């Protein structure tokens, strides 16, 4: 069996067992309503985690995603409320800005040959700072487009609602799965994560791929910002504080190797859902406090890091 499947299977099994246990205790959790909310409430995290998956697969890390989400929500709010742009136009501008920002970070990582964490750390400071320079106060968004979006959803059997932002996340995941596993760009991302030297020798355009990876990550963080903006109808520079950590956790729990090269976009989806499930369970339980989420996520993170160590430490099996 492909050994990179093992962590993914472990995640899936943990999710199913956890869900089963949760349903045993709180039968109400087995409803499309809960499922719909799981998708809606975690949509922005899911979209951001997709970008993080590509970055981590390539052997890097992106600490700027939370800040880019925050910046995007402020930029969108400013464009809509102060400049009277149509939200769709504002979204387009925000996505392009975010993409260019990521491309610049990718270029810095490639050309300056510095660790990605320090470059994206600078990116994080810049995006948060830039957002608060635009506006340090929260800006509420009132626009008929926003109210129309929040009123539209697909009614699921059982009363659950599949909202627009939930659909955005699902589409993003579907598209990302195709990009990761069925395009040359996707292959190149895995190649970089496997061995940058080998990849270069085999003709992978390392610089171009690196720039595209970080541009993609920031664009998706921008899209997560759009989702967040639709979710909260507000723009605030401190929105999505620390989401990069949740995204990294989702990617790792989803079975992607933190050192790159192995993993699946679909696994990240399960990782996000697992985090959402923990939160939902805590809400349902009522007696547990919210900080248990962080502890459980930390424990899961630890388990998966150790699991990966065990799975990937053994050298090539001779056949």
């Amino acid at each position, binding site marked *: 069996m*492909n*050994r*990179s499947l093992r962590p993914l299977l472990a995640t899936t099994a943990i999710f199913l067992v956890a869900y089963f246990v949760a349903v045993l205790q709180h039968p109400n959790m087995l409803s499309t309503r809960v499922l719909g909310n799981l998708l809606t409430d975690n949509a922005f995290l899911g979209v951001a985690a997709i970008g993080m998956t590509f970055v981590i697969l390539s052997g890097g890390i992106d600490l700027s995603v939370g800040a880019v989400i925050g910046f995007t929500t402020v930029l969108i709010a400013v464009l809509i409320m102060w400049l009277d742009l149509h939200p769709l136009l504002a979204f387009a501008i925000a996505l392009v800005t975010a993409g260019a920002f990521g491309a610049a970070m990718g270029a810095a990582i490639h050309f300056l040959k510095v660790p990605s964490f320090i470059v994206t750390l600078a990116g994080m400071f810049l995006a948060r700072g830039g957002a608060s320079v635009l506006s340090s106060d929260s800006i509420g968004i009132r626009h008929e487009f926003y109210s129309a979006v929040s009123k539209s959803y697909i009614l699921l059997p059982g009363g659950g609602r599949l909202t627009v932002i939930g659909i955005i996340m699902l589409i993003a995941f579907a598209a990302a799965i*195709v990009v990761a596993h*069925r*395009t*040359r760009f996707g*292959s*190149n991302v*895995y*190649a970089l*994560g*496997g*061995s940058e*030297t*080998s*990849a270069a*020798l*085999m*003709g*992978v355009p390392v610089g171009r791929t690196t720039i595209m990876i970080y541009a993609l990550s920031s664009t998706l963080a921008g899209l997560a910002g759009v989702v967040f903006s639709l979710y909260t109808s507000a723009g605030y520079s401190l929105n999505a504080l620390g989401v990069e950590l949740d995204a990294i956790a989702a990617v790792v729990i989803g079975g992607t190797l933190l050192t790159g*090269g*192995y993993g699946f976009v679909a696994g990240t989806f399960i990782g996000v859902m697992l985090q959402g499930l923990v939160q939902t369970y805590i809400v349902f339980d009522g007696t547990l406090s919210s900080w248990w989420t962080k502890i459980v996520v930390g424990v899961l993170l630890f388990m998966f890091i150790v699991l990966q160590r065990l799975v990937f430490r053994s*050298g*090539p*099996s*001779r*056949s």
Partner: protein
Amino acid sequence: MSDHGTRPVLQGCGIVKTFGQHRALDGVDFDLYAGEVHALLGENGAGKSTLIKILTGAYQPDGGELLLDGEPIQLRDTLHGQGYGIGTVYQEVNLLPNRSAAENLFLGRQPTRFGLIQRREIETRARDLLAGYGLDIDVHAELSEFSVAIQQIVAIARAVELSGKVLVLDEPTASLDRNEVERLYEVIGGLKAKGLGIIFITHFLDQVFDLADRVTVLRNGRKVATEALSDVDTTDVVRMMLGKDVSFEHHPTTLNSRTKGRVRVSFKGVGRTGLAPFDLAVHEGEVVGVAGLLGSGRTEVARLLFGVDAAESGSFTVDGQPVSIRNPAQAVAAGFGFCPEDRKLDGIFGELSVRENIIIALQAKLGWFRALNRDDQIELSGRYAEALDIRAADHDMPVKFLSGGNQQKVILARWLAIDPTFLILDEPTRGIDVGAHAEIVRTINRLREEGLALFVISSELDEVVAYSDRVVVMRERQMVAELASDDITPDAIVQAIAGTHSKENTL
């Protein structure tokens, strides 16, 4: 060799390459015909890898020119060389361990439809391609799941697909077992029949004779000779590889009447997987030289003695007392010192100063709290720098700015500073200007006179002869012969390494 055309497919004329002050290649001529296997031999630092990097485009020569089918070419990089039909398979397989065999074969040229990779087509084509090499594997499985031999064949298949004229195989058999080597022979034979020119680098002489049509031997950046293998035997090849660049005066046994000192260190039945157990005792004031080709197990012995790899069997004795040596720290505590073969990787601390590099082992031995103060450090480094004639403008400058020979002396000084009983030197003259060789040899002789027990590995035959009281010969990961006093001659060592007429010396 008669059926190839009159003109070589790939030719290098007077290739020169220098790194800093070090001349890695000095006017080397090389030619390769279609349909031949041309072996390239030489010890570490002889210039083999520099030469193939120039032939494949990884390096650009500083002098000389490359001709492909008689036309001069200039290669920007390996991809450019690949475009001309020159492909390479490196020793440490340069493929992606995390991707499937099929994807490794087609990375960068995957067939796509509407931008989407046609995975089924890739897998079918990969299966067909590998079938041509007699390989029937699950092409969907991750490459790292396969043995190194299969990875090698996949790498060869990719290189041949992309290039198709010249194939460079850089030590492809280094980590293969006998069956796997046989399998590789078949693959290479098939490619040769198809008319590819193949450059084959290895350090196994028997494989050279099994496989190659001609051999070129390099030593210290110069070509020694190119010979058809039908005209030479193993002994000739070993002699060419280890030959003489510098002549040294005398064998040490003729200097003293041999009054051997007491035994300082002895090893009984020391061994480990892949290395036959051996016995060894080294006396006070004695140099035991180790001769053997690269890959004969000589470095592995040194690593075992110093605890870099823990021995799986056997016992260690120092001055009659049994000691446990499971890691280098214990070896240092027992008074051992080790100058490793790869200075840059395992020896020097590039950013640390000359002074700190000299005192570091003593400091590690003393522990954190008994810090050598600055005056002690200056005194120690000054003393050994003078004793070994280390040429540094300033002992506070980072050691990475020194020449290779001076760095080697710094590491030697590091071990002398702990006042060792037993010193292991692995290729002490490798990568050092030929002029500085004599100096190292003099130093080794002086250390012997001061009563040290030394264990010196070298591929420079004349040097081994110049300082050894005894010579241990290694072949195929075991000690196969031991020569003493008057038996130590270059010829006797060559015979023992080649393993041809020297059965009577075999242990």
